[in-house]
């Protein structure tokens, strides 16, 4: 539509040659380059390339960690990523353990169950904070909870569902008339009751979503799945159990090959599966009836933040008029509003290219992208099947 003309506003932009050497000047170039944005936006104390803890957890759960990319990660982070991040974790842990209750330990215990989502683990951990609290006043208890949830959130800034889950827990549990109870013990038990109820709801969310989504899977349909989402797996599993005949196309899911794992799981269920490389999505879009994706987080605009490649698939699907369905539990609803791709807290993930990459070559290591709401058809959540615009409605009601 237009060609980039000479800059008027940014006329003091340095020559192309300096941009590489001088990172300061780069800040002024009109489209902020990705690496700059990342270093600026990364709230983590350590700005060098680290593996997002969120993806470490996922890797540990899914067992698709390849030694290659660990090595790559180490090379990228100067060889001590692992030690440093574990140190970091350790320091956090010790900080947490100084407090009355070691939330992180509790959280890690829960987290070991592979079927349990991170947010649910956090919710369980927070519930146990209430249970073991020795506070004698409401204020004290609330402060304790706040501290616990803060330490959980700071444990992994990159996990949207963890942050959102903690926030929602605080909202749901502490915003009750119980705060005004005369008797502290009964108020506390009311808190606990709500906390456990919330944990239960969150735990059951996946089943509810799987049930709701069955109406959308018809016999003989072909479904494209991107990434490994436990909700999507649950949906497909339920559909298979309901004797529906459908075919699944799995993307490979580079770099952590999450698609391979999903295809393994589906093969076990005797669902016909076909594997695609990530770049073959447009090629096979015409034989697809619907796209199913999970979500790392659902943001206020109704869009989703999900594994890298989701946006691309949604764009292709939109241009070919295929529905894109998102399966996400309501604890992933986050009060975020990215305006574009770079307007997010980046989660970095090193990529294994199989061959050594020269140092001069820059590698895009962002692990997720943002899909705007206009490319999504419906969201399957435990609150019901929602259009993207309802997300903000729900969020406003949850948070305000």
């Amino acid at each position, binding site marked *: *539509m*237009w060609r*980039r*003309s000479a*800059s*008027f*506003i*940014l006329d003091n932009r340095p020559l192309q040659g300096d941009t590489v050497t001088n990172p300061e000047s780069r*800040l*002024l*170039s*009109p*489209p*902020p380059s990705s690496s*700059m*944005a990342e270093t*600026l*936006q990364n709230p983590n104390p350590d700005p060098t390339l680290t593996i997002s803890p969120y993806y470490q957890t996922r890797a540990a759960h899914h067992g698709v960690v390849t030694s290659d990319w660990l090595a790559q990660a180490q090379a990228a982070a100067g060889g001590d990523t692992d030690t440093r991040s574990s140190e970091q974790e350790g320091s956090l842990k010790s900080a947490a353990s100084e407090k009355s209750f070691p939330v992180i330990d509790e959280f890690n215990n829960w987290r070991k169950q592979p079927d349990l989502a991170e947010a649910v683990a956090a919710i369980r951990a927070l519930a146990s904070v209430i249970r073991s609290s020795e506070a004698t006043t409401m204020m004290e208890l609330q402060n304790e909870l706040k501290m616990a949830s803060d330490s959980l959130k700071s444990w992994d800034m990159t996990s949207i569902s963890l942050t959102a889950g903690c926030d929602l827990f605080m909202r749901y549990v502490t915003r009750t008339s119980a705060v005004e109870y005369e008797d502290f013990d009964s108020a506390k038990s009311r808190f606990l009751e709500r906390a456990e109820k919330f944990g239960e709801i969150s735990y059951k969310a996946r089943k509810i979503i799987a049930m709701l989504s069955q109406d959308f899977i018809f016999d003989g349909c072909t479904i494209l799945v991107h990434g490994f989402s436990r909700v999507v797996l649950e949906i497909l599993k339920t559909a298979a159990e309901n004797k529906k005949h459908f075919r699944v196309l799995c993307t490979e899911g580079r770099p952590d090959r999450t698609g391979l794992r999903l295809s393994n799981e589906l093969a076990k269920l005797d669902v016909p599966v076909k594997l695609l490389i990530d770049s073959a999505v447009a090629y096979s879009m015409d034989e697809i009836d619907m796209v199913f994706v999970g979500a790392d987080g659902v943001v*206020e*605009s*109704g869009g989703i933040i999900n594994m890298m490649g989701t946006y691309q698939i949604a764009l292709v699907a939109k241009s070919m008029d295929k529905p894109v369905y998102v399966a996400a539990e309501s604890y992933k609803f986050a*009060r975020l*509003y990215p*305006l*574009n791709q770079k*307007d997010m807290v980046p989660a970095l993930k090193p990529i294994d290219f199989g061959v050594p990459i020269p140092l001069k070559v820059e590698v895009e290591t962002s692990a997720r992208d943002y899909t705007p*709401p206009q490319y999504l058809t419906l969201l399957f959540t435990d609150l019901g099947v929602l259009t993207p*615009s309802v997300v*903000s*409605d729900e969020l*406003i*009601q949850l*948070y*305000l």
Partner: protein
Amino acid sequence: MDPRRPSRVIDPKVRKVGFFTPGPPPDRTQSGPAATPPSQSPISNTLSPIMIPPARHASDNLSRAVGMPVPAGSQLHGHPPVDSLQVGSYTLSDSVLSPSPTRSPSSRVGLDGDFSEDSVNWMKRSNSGRYTPVLPTGGPDLTQSIEASIDESSGDHIAELQKNPKPLKAKTTKAERRALQEAQRAAKATAKGEGNKSVATSATSAPAQTSKPARHPSQKKEPPPLVSSTPILEKKGTEKAPEKDRKKEVPPPRMQFDDKNRVEKAKKRSVVKQTEARNRVELFRHLPQYERENQLSDLESKFFQLDNVHPAVFKVGLQFLSGDIMWSNARCISMLQSFQKIIEEYTTPPEKTLTRDLTTKINASVSFLIECRPLSISMGNAIRFLKSRITKIPLTQTEFEAKTSLSSDIDRYINEKIILADKVIVGHAVTKIRDGDVLLTYGSSALIEMVLLHAYGLRRRFKVVVVDSRPHLEGRVMVRKLVEKGVSCTYTHVNAVSYIMHEVTRVFVGAASVLANGTVYSAVGTACVAMVAHAFHVPVLVCCESYKFHERVQLDSICSNELGDPDVIAKVPGRKDNCLDDWANKENLQLLNLAYDVTPADYVSMIVTEHGMIPPTSVPVIVREYGREHILI
């Protein structure tokens, strides 16, 4: 005949396309100057299609008029005076004005006092139209003699003829069909009431009716009277349908300024001298268009005569009128504070209750303020809040208690809904400003300025492009303030927005209101900026306090808007001889100075309110969830 028919069909549509000059649309000239009987031509331009329902029996008239090149007189045989008069006057105007067709109508009026401006208008417009003086039917002397009886209504009757072609075409618009129905109904009603009145009465009575208003200077600029639903050629010979009947059927929800009766009534009540503007823009006739020149001085001189208007309100009104207070927040706050003064000095008169009497008092002040400048939506919301507070005062409360509680309510409204809300919005909006951003803002908004300065205070490194536009050039104030603080700025006019947009990473604009469909109602030009930004994939952030949200839905900028002083756009400051200096005297020139426009939700990425950052689709949620609380506070 055939080529002509489409031209007639198009005719009203052409007129509807907004801001137009009354010159004939190009396609009409195709029909050929001599082909159409002149009786149909002259006034066709002056009449709004919306206002004139076609006659019931229009089609047969038309078929005759169009189908046969019969001289106009033969079909109008019932009204020879009108007909010949019309033709005659046409030629007269031609002959008189031919040397200088653009001569001001006032000179014409001077020539023969009884001429209403409208008749002059249509005649003159006919000049500029496609018709060359073909029919020298009536000699000048004839026209002179009948001139006195020419008036708007006769113009109307001829207009009726003009309109007749319409029903012929297969498709009529809904509005037209409805108008037709109404006309028929009205005709029936009057026929019953008045029996068979001779047609002649209508012909004679018409001048009598209208000659009176024609002499009033303020009336001069009126459009031809609304519709005379019944045409002269009515076979039953009915009179003009009384307009009241039709008004009662469908009471308009808002004041429509093309409704003559209501305007008259409003004028009687009004305090501010309101002279209707000349050359009013056709499409915006439903909005008030007044001459601005003398309003301020006139109102100032009335200071001691206006007992019912509180001095505080009077002051605020003057400030609105003179444009000293322009920003919607400032207007709202000053209005509320003046009301606060009213309440403080209020004592309930004996045998009256506070709730009733105070409400009427506030109402009077509000209508005074409306006369000074139409209310903004935010002010409407604030007034609604105040009134609901007043009505909720329990009868048991003493006057003093009621007054203090109201006063503190107003204070809280100002603090919570405006001042505190602004602070929260600034906090939200700043999170979207990152180092290296280039922010574009349009015009001037106090809120956006706060956002930018706050971000600058946080040592974010960003640049600002301030886009400005005539006539107010508000952006200059903003640029000055930003530059003083050290923000690096670029100042440009809206003409350059498409050039500058590719360097911009975020667009921040303020809003006068956000409507329930996510539409942003804001200073004129915002929509243009937002659309350009959308085309360049630049996110548009609208900052707006939620007290400005409104549950109304608006699809275009026409239905509800505010018209500014057209003189402002005619005059370029610093230029000595403006081309448009005497624009008011040019009949075929109308200036449109819109105050607001409407940005569709598609072009808005995000609305920043004190409740957080929300997509435009969530505005109804805020209205629903907080609309009630807003009243309860």
